[in-house]
């Protein structure tokens, strides 16, 4: 593949629209001509027409925020969510601790124990949102797609802890039962059509 277009760093050669601005006049005659030009070309009225046109078109771009919201991308990284397994409705987190390890701002703290079925269970899981930089590493590293980023960007509350309690982050069981858990499409999540692209591991050799 030809790499030339990627190696060419001289971006100013093309792709920029050059605005046609005449040089400043240096002679008095040139200045006079500019004054006459500006006076009789009626440039001021061009500006007036532009704003009046926009007013008449009435193409309002305002989003009335609390009532209307802009759609956010599926890869948006806001407050974390914990997902549940589709098969059993139990939480996906296996307590491997990778997110705690990879977290570059050291904001994830977790504690695990062995439960009565000899399975590893998460007993404590907190994210200090005051330190979190929403880099998305935890979601990327999670082998079970358990911790992901959600779309909840309205972080106003009495206490930060209201967002980062494990129970708060976990998909509510009612939502899960209705089958309405939304999968995260961002960093670390499986991409669509992954089934078609997956190759068998060549165990033969």
């Amino acid at each position, binding site marked *: 593949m030809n790499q030339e277009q990627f190696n060419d760093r001289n971006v100013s050669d093309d792709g920029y629209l050059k605005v046609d601005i005449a040089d400043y006049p240096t002679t008095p005659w040139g200045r006079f001509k500019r004054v006459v030009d500006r006076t009789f070309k009626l440039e*001021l009225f061009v*500006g*007036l027409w*532009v*704003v*009046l046109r*926009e*007013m008449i078109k*009435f*193409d*309002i*771009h*305002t989003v*009335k925020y609390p009532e209307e919201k802009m759609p956010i991308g599926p890869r948006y990284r806001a407050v974390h969510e914990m997902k549940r397994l589709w098969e059993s409705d139990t939480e996906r987190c296996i307590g491997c601790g990778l997110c705690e390890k990879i977290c570059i701002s050291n904001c994830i703290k977790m504690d695990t124990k062995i439960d009565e079925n000899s399975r590893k269970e998460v007993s404590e899981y907190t994210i200090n949102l005051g330190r979190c930089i929403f880099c998305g590493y935890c979601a990327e590293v999670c082998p079970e797609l358990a911790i992901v980023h959600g779309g909840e960007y309205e972080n106003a509350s009495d206490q930060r802890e209201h967002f980062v309690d494990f129970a708060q982050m976990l998909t509510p069981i009612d939502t899960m039962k209705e089958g309405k858990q939304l999968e995260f499409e961002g960093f670390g999540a499986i991409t669509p059509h992954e089934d078609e692209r997956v190759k068998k591991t060549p165990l033969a050799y």
Partner: protein
Amino acid sequence: METAYLIETVIKIVIILLVFSALAGFGTYFERKILAFMSRRLGPMNVGPYGLLQIAADGIKLFTKEDIIPTNVVGRIFKIAPVITAATAFMAAAAIPFLPAFTIGSYEVNPIVSDINIGILYILGVMGIGLYGPLLGGMASANKFSLLSAARSAAVFISYEVVTGLSILAPIMIVGSLSLIDFNNYQATHGWLVFSQPVAFILFWIAAFAETGRTPFHLVANDHEIIDGFGTEYSGMRWGLFFIGEYANMFFISFVIPLLFLGGFGDGSVMGAFAFLGKMAFFFFFFLWTRAAWPDVRPDQLMMLCWKILMPIAVINIVITGIVMM
């Protein structure tokens, strides 16, 4: 007769005060809405239907805010300055006929407080005194930005008084009177003055922007250079008075320009009255329109425009008018 005249005058004064104080409030609403529409926004929408009660919210805010008199200001002058701005703006209204004369029952009402024979001179003079609001307010504020604004306002007002006065001189020579009613009646019979005095019309219109301190010449209180200029240290209703003065001035100038050049209310019919209000509305709208479209000029450009361009044109206009009239 005397008592009737007295009562009538007092009622007219009260009506003008109330109507134009309210209109000044609505002026801010119109300004926000129109500027918003022109920049594809919605403007105030939350207080009342379509944000109509925003004026009430602003009024309550202004009236209940603490009236701060900062340390180091010259207290008395600081306190009186906004009153000067508002008062002179409303005093100028005394010589403006707002509508043609009409009759209630058999009593004839002239919607002008006093038809003095030096009407236009009085209006220009009182609006000129309005300079003392920004000037004293800015100088008393103990704030460098306010001081700059005071200096600018003095320069701008005095310079553009010259343009206003000279540009209006030629129409005055034609009409032969300073009364706005005479101007109106002259145009009802002889045709609009804008056709015989287009140069004077444009000069007066340009100068009106400087007199009211509106956008192309808004350097008296340029937010991006000198914060709010003379209004920086003011809070609450004192600041509100500056605002009322500015918007009342805009309304009165919008009444004066059609009266002087665009036929006023014509022959005094109902249609003429509505046409007059329509013209007034256009000039007020134009004040807001330019604010959305045009950038501000620098102070030196403003002075250059006044003394090197507008004033010579005005003088030439007078000379030519004089020669033609001879």
